[in-house]
């Protein structure tokens, strides 16, 4: 009698172990399928929109055009003091600005500015903005990267 009970218990335990193994395998398989389908693009939409909106706002407010009339240290100081105000609280961003002059034979790009808020995230989205000072043949490019902090 004791032997048959032990055997029964062993089988039940084995059954339970097998069931747990099956459950773990099933869960792992499902997680594996779901994780491979996670859409980077879908989660990047708000980032992309923010990147474009920040540059558009800075452009419409004249932040970029004002750079043409200021010296480099004034431009850098203004960017460092105001850039964070444009970025949502749950996001970080890095802005690079390059200003070039058309010389007739090509472009001479001698002014560069960079400012950053936050430390960097896994998923980033970027946008670009062009701004011009036509009378002086000066053209600027602003490139922003935005991420979730």
């Amino acid at each position: 009698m004791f032997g048959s009970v032990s055997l029964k218990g062993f089988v039940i335990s084995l059954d339970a172990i097998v069931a747990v193994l099956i459950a773990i395998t099933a869960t792992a398989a499902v997680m594996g399928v779901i994780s491979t389908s996670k859409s980077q693009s879908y989660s990047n939409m708000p980032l992309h929109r923010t990147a474009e909106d920040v540059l558009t706002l800075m452009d419409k407010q004249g932040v970029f055009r004002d750079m043409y009339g200021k010296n480099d240290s004034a431009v850098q100081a203004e960017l460092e003091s105001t850039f964070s105000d444009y970025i949502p609280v749950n996001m970080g961003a890095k802005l690079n600005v390059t200003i070039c002059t058309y010389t007739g034979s090509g472009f001479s790009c001698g002014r560069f500015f960079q400012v950053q808020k936050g430390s960097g995230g896994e998923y980033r989205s970027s946008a670009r903005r062009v701004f011009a000072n036509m009378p002086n043949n000066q053209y600027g490019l602003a490139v922003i990267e935005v991420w979730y902090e």
Partner: protein
Amino acid sequence: MSKTNKKGFIFALLTLLLFTTLLALAINLRVDRGKVSSWAQDMIVTRKLLYTTDDIAEDVQFGLGTRVQRSGDTLIIYDHLPANFSLNTSLYGYDRFVKTMYLTPEMRVQFYDEAGNEISLNQMNPTIIIYPYNITYGYEDYGKRELSVNCQEECKNNLLNAVGLNFNLTDSNFTWNPVPGNESHYQWSPNFLYNGTCSWDTCINFSLVVRDSLGRSYTCPGPICNYNQFRTDKKSALSIQMTPCWLEVIFGNSEDNIFLVRLHEPGNPDKECESDVNLETALDFPSSEYYLNLPGYVRVTDINYNASRVLLLPGENISARELRRSVEPPNYTESECFVWDASNVWAGGSEDRYIYGFRMSNSCTGRFLTITKVNVSWTPNTGQQIEVVNINGTSYWAYNGAGTPDGRQPSGTLLDMVDFSMYPLTSTNITYLRFASGNNMSGESFTIDFYFGDNTTKHVAFGPV
């Protein structure tokens, strides 16, 4: 089967069923997320195209060196004659900067003139167009030595209520004192001006102030100019003696002119003269529902997604308008987008065996057009043979090269070309059709059947050339 075995079997079956259900659910979820991912990507691409196009269009409006201001029904354009910077260089520089430094590799930008020809930005007509009145404000060239405002249709006062001109000549002076008694120093000739008595529908109210560097001014209406109306269908020309240049203002003429302003050498209207003029032109319209555009379009294309957006270039600081003037039905075929013009086709070149001048366009805003084959026939057919079909400077079919069949071909042969694609709203030429040596094609009549990528065709007939 014992009870235990049966229970075990049922248990195992249930487990398998649950596992299969879970897996099916996960797969379904993945498929849905894939669809959302594709939709999201389409949205991002569309938004990026509109954003980029608007970004570029916003800068171009400053290319003419003018500033515009709206005040209800009145539009004020602030300007400077002559150009105080090289518009040609600055617009070309912007064109190059956008195309070589601004755009990422998958993006492409093209500028077009009003006719749909691809241009560099500095080839755009130096004009602002005011819609819906179709009034143009523009210059003879980028030097901005002559400014004119014109109607594109008959100029009547239902398009424009009044014109106010304010000229501030910062380095010019009257050679006389603008007071009564000095009429010999200025001249209205011809003179179709009125003082409130104009009764035609071409009468436009006007005011004119010309101020020199000493602050003296000649004004209409005023002590020595008792007029406040001109007729757009009758010319009235004012010449004022100043130094270093004489100022000329012409109201109305036979070319739907509203006004024209220029400076010329003293006593010599045929020779232009340069002197700084700060102008304010106030145009008073029947309503405030007007908008400004430049005579051109910008198209931005995402090459990876084969998607593009076309916008009219704005003439003021508002969002550019996406082109809507010909929204073809979604089922429009490539043959329906294909427009051709054979009015300038001619035979020429060596032995008159070249046919030149066939122009074709893609009139659609959202469809690419691909020519895959052509069938060229001609009459009278005296055994001539076609050698080359050259489009836009490249041979897309040649008897000894591109396309099939090989060898020179008689009339009515289907020529399978290297596919030639046309972007929306673009035009190009069949640069030439070349025939075999000894084949004089002068006087021939032609038919060309174009075969397109969507398996539609277009039959074209022209001649004799």
